[in-house]
């Protein structure tokens, strides 16, 4: 009888507690639900993709900017500026880049090419053989340490504007000669257009620019090839011609040639 009464009491206690168990279970379910939701939110937030994308973009950005700095410096030097401008500009670019990466540390280093024919990264050859070149060569190393990864990129920038000219002339009368000049402009060995082409001829140690009175004509073939012709008086058979070209990037180059009589 006592045992029966005891079993009934136990069942009553279990029945009494079942409401509390229900509540505890509800709390557990609620906390599981909320923590699962929080986890999903956090996982979504911690995507490293954005940083990687911005790192790649920044590396490309700096490489392109380095090229622009070199082009601008060469434009300055080839137009009579000081050779030191290249180093000064690259120094400024280097320190600027050091402060521009928002997600970590950015260090840009450069060296100027010293192997012949370059000196301090610069080579200006404005020779008498019909060939002229204005060139800059610099090596770069760019290290970026982001929050999740580190990238090091090495590259070189070689900017060269070259000019090739050839000339023929034929006698029209005792002193006058018709001179033809063929001009080829190249950027990094690829035919390129010029912003300005100026032809000179030399008589008695003085240079002259042919004009309308010389029946000067300049024709562009649209592919970096130009031809010029003019008539001038030359006391001797020796006809020296020069061509000065400024390409679309503002880089100046000069070439001299002795015209061949045909």
């Amino acid at each position: 009888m006592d045992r029966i009464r005891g079993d009934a009491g136990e069942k009553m206690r279990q029945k009494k507690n079942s409401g509390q168990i229900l509540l505890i279970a509800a709390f557990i379910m609620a906390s599981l639900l909320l923590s699962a939701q929080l986890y999903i939110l956090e996982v979504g937030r911690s995507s490293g993709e954005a940083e990687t994308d911005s790192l790649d973009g920044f590396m490309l950005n700096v490489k392109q900017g380095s090229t622009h700095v070199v082009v601008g410096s060469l434009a300055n030097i080839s137009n009579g500026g000081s050779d030191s401008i290249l180093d000064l500009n690259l120094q400024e670019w280097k320190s600027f880049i050091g402060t521009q990466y928002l997600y970590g540390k950015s260090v840009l280093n450069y060296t100027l090419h010293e192997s012949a024919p370059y000196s301090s990264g610069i080579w200006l050859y404005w020779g008498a053989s019909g060939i002229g070149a204005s060139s800059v060569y610099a090596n770069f190393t760019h290290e970026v340490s982001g929050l999740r990864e580190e990238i090091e990129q090495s590259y070189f920038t070689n900017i060269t504007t070259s000019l090739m000219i050839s000339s023929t002339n034929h006698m029209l009368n005792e002193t006058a000669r018709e001179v033809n000049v063929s001009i080829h402009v190249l950027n990094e060995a690829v035919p390129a257009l010029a912003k300005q082409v100026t032809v000179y001829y030399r008589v008695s140690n003085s240079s002259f620019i042919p004009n309308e009175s010389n029946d000067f004509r300049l024709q562009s073939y649209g592919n970096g090839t130009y031809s010029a012709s003019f008539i001038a008086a030359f006391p001797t058979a020796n006809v020296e011609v020069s061509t000065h070209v400024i390409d679309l990037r503002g880089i100046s180059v000069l070439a001299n040639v002795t015209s061949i009589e045909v």
Partner: protein
Amino acid sequence: MKVFDQKGQIRIIESFLAIAVVFSAMLVSFTFPTSPDFSKQSSLSNLGTQVLTELDNDGTLGSLILRQNWTSLTTALDILLPMGVSFNLTVFDQAWKTVNSAIIQNSNLLGPEVISIQYVCATRSQTVELFVVRLQLAWTG
């Protein structure tokens, strides 16, 4: 008999409480701020970087900034960016002073998620000048 009735009421109250707890947890989880769509943001960021890189490829970006040709810069961005993307561009000098005197944008950035791209720009001019270009983009659709 009365005690049994009260027990029944308490059980009902407890059940209601349990339901309320679970229901309120569900409500809270539904009203959580939804995670921003990073794939969409990333594609917008890539798009912006590509557009600026393309514009800067031959030094056009630097040249337009130097000539303060803000109208042409706006037109160029309008052409290069797809429809449905609103932009706002600001140019800063090295001292973080705003360079652009006019607003460079196609419409107000109305999208729910605006991304910002920072681009360093060096000019190809004989006197090399350095700028920071900040492009803000948002999907308007």
